[in-house]
């Protein structure tokens, strides 16, 4: 995997050199170690710093939720049972000490014990993380190529019927909150109009979401409809800009076939800004999936997070918040690397 990106990067460099502004670049003067590795290294360190800061915010912000012992016991709390539970959960130690213990545990892959379930957090959330990750991956694997395809095609057919229809429909879906889309799909395919698909995803404990693919259709479709419009619109705008650029005109004037102009010169340059939007959308999916999981009763981190907040189950909230923050950092790093790889102008500035 490590050699993959850099290998293809240099190949891209060779290919792009005759065409666009990359002609001014100096691909031959690249040092023995590609500067991209130094960049990645710096970004990883920066990401670690961000996560450290996030951990401070997450830990101390979650304390504001109130006393977890009281939230767990609810109305049945008595002073004696409260004191016993606080002792058991180490809630009576100084906050900074609690934070350092928590952070130390986190670095060793131990996120503490759930206050509500009295089980290790990692064990409690493992299945949910797999379920959510699977949902996001499937939704991403469908929506990313789909939106690039739709966006590019709309740009090529600018102001023609397809483009107008695409602009209108993506605007509609981008404007609808995903729970509305989800409920509409349920009404349409599960409960009222047709009865062809399950309206909720019931994943039995120990089961995996892919055991019953039909139960995945509606949640995935909802997420695809939530993400595709944004990415497709950015792709279209970006592609139109590229198609009007000097180097694409140059390529056309050189007499290159239109297919080559688009796939070799236009598309790679239009993808740069799109990658950023894709990364943001995937990261958004990881957090925004909460609503979709709620609508479909899908047992992922969204439902887990909601339940944890309800129970004031701090270790679970903290672990999930750190997980989502980590995902943001990683996806942004990947998007930046990918953008640089397809944008010679940026690459040469490393």
């Amino acid at each position, binding site marked *: 995997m490590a050699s993959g990106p850099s290998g293809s990067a240099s190949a891209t460099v060779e290919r792009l050199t005759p065409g666009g502004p990359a002609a001014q670049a100096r691909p031959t003067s690249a040092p023995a170690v590609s500067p991209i590795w130094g960049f990645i290294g710096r970004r990883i360190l920066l990401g670690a710093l961000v996560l450290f800061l996030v951990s401070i915010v997450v830990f101390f912000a979650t304390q504001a939720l109130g006393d977890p012992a009281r939230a767990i016991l609810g109305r049945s709390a008595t002073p004696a049972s409260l004191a016993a539970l606080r002792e058991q959960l180490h809630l009576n130690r100084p906050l900074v000490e609690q934070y350092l213990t928590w952070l130390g545990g986190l670095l060793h892959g131990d996120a503490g014990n759930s206050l509500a*379930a*009295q089980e290790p957090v990692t064990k409690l959330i493992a299945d949910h993380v797999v379920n959510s990750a699977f949902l996001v991956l499937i939704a991403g694997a469908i929506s990313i190529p789909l939106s690039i395809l739709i966006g590019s095609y709309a740009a090529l057919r600018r102001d023609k019927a397809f483009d107008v229809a695409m602009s209108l429909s993506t605007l509609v879906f981008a404007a609808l909150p995903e729970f509305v889309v989800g409920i509409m799909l*349920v009404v349409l395919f599960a*409960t009222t109009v047709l*009865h062809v698909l399950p309206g909720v995803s019931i994943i039995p404990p120990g089961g995996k979401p892919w055991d019953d693919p039909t139960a995945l259709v509606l949640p995935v479709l909802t997420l695809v409809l939530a993400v595709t419009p944004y990415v497709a619109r950015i792709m279209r705008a970006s592609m139109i800009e590229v198609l009007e650029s000097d180097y694409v005109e140059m390529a056309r004037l050189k007499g290159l076939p239109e297919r080559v102009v688009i796939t070799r010169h236009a598309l790679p340059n239009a993808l740069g800004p799109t990658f950023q939007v894709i990364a943001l959308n995937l990261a958004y999916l990881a957090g925004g999936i909460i609503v979709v999981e709620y609508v*479909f009763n899908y*047992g992922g981190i969204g439902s887990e997070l909601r339940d944890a907040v309800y129970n004031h189950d701090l270790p679970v909230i903290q672990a999930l918040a750190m997980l989502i923050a980590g995902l943001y950092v990683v996806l942004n790093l990947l998007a930046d690397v990918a953008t640089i790889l397809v944008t010679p102008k940026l690459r040469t500035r490393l």
Partner: protein
Amino acid sequence: MDDKSTLESMYLGGTITRRQLLMGIGMLAAGASIASVLAACGTSSGPIGGGTPKRGGNFRLGVTGGGAKDMMDGQNIITKPDQARLVTAFETLLIYNEQYELKTDGLAESVTQDAPDKWTVRLRQGIEWHNGKTLNADDVVYSFQRMLDPKNGLFGNAGLSSIDPNNIQKMDERTVRLNLKQADSTIGEQLGQYYNGMVPVGYKRFDSATGPSGQIGTGPYKLQSFTPGQQSVHVRNPNYWRSGQPYFDQVTVIDFTDPTAQANALLGGQVDAITDIPFAQVDVVKAHSGLAVLESPGGGWLPLCMAIDIPPFSDNRVRQAFRLIVDRQAFVTQVLSGHGRIANDLYAPFDACFASDLPQRHQDLQQAKSLLASAGFAGATFDLHTTDGAAGMVDSANIFAQQAKGAGITVNVHNDPNYYGDNYLKLGFSVDFWGTRAYLPQVGNGSVPGAPYNECHWPPSDSNYIQLYHSALAETDQAKRCQIVHDMQKLEYDKGGYIIPFFNNLVDAYSTKVSGFVPSKGTLNLTSFGHGFRTVWFG
């Protein structure tokens, strides 16, 4: 045969009582359908269109209100799914039927009060635990000792606290004598509460390390698997002591986070029954040919509570004025969308001694205004505390504030997420929630000093309420006890701190493939979850 004659023939055939007949004819006149009339009358003689019970199938129940803190314990619950799971495996000595009448129909062959402070439990012969051992007196002694140890924090602890834990005597293999610390005539009622289940010697609550094998009960289903917040699977107990029952091969209890997803699962056929459908979904479910709504007259209540020793509520004129401000029907309409009945500031409507003869209070803003003026609080401002503790608590507070404007006063509603914190039970005017109980057990829980939740700080120091309470607990004659209980209710009606606008119904839904669900009075949904899913079957 028209609907009216259908009802009459049911009356003659003994299927329904005279009271139900008259009530039903009245409802028919009001335009209701025969099925809904029968449902509302709560016929207990068998399911509507039920037929002969059949064996087989996996019954899937959707329940909201659960989460990671779900538990399984034969004597404790925190969430609603806990209730459904408890009754699959654990049973009580006595049982409440669909009319909330206490029946000797449980694990005990007899439960007798030999003296005001002595009760004797005699077990049925030959009831087996899930592991094949026979239920005996040692198990009963262990069960009581477990419930009575406050360290265990079990749900029934407060209600049983008059039993002396060190003086529970095993008389023989099937007989146990409960010696009380003081006279208590409510022990029998406590023994019928679903959460006071019998567990075998050495029993412990479910934990994922030991797995389902530790959940040994006498109930109709054995626990096969359980993941808190997700689902549990219960398989038929082939050696169940009630012959023929249960009917399902398997029961699956599934947690739902969102009531709409839960309703969608029922509409799409992924579950066979659900608890507490959102009121907005009632018509959707009714319109669906394969589904039915089960509306049960529950005894749950959301009181507004005035602490009778905190000014200005220490003045009974203010309390009476506040009670006269309430338009009870508007509460039923706005908080419950009509799924409830108006109440009269008294709790325990299913108690045999319930004071139904006290005149129904109605809104009287003029009277309220003049009472407030004479107490010196005309046009005053009051604080009302509430929280999202149970559905309707915030609505109730807001509706009261709205109605109070009619009496010229201002009520500021404080919605506090940490309501059940340090200030709980110390507030002057607040909203709370309660389930169904008989009168005296409810008093022991919330209306005498020493009760765990005496939110209204009842009774006033100059009343003889506490003496009445103790003499009622000591009175073994039902008629005499009812007279005392009536006097107690009269005191609360005249001077109490509670405003009780309504009792809510339990509104559940199920697939018509399932037979055996009947409306029932009580705390639990779906006919006490089919009494542990043993009185329901796939028709």
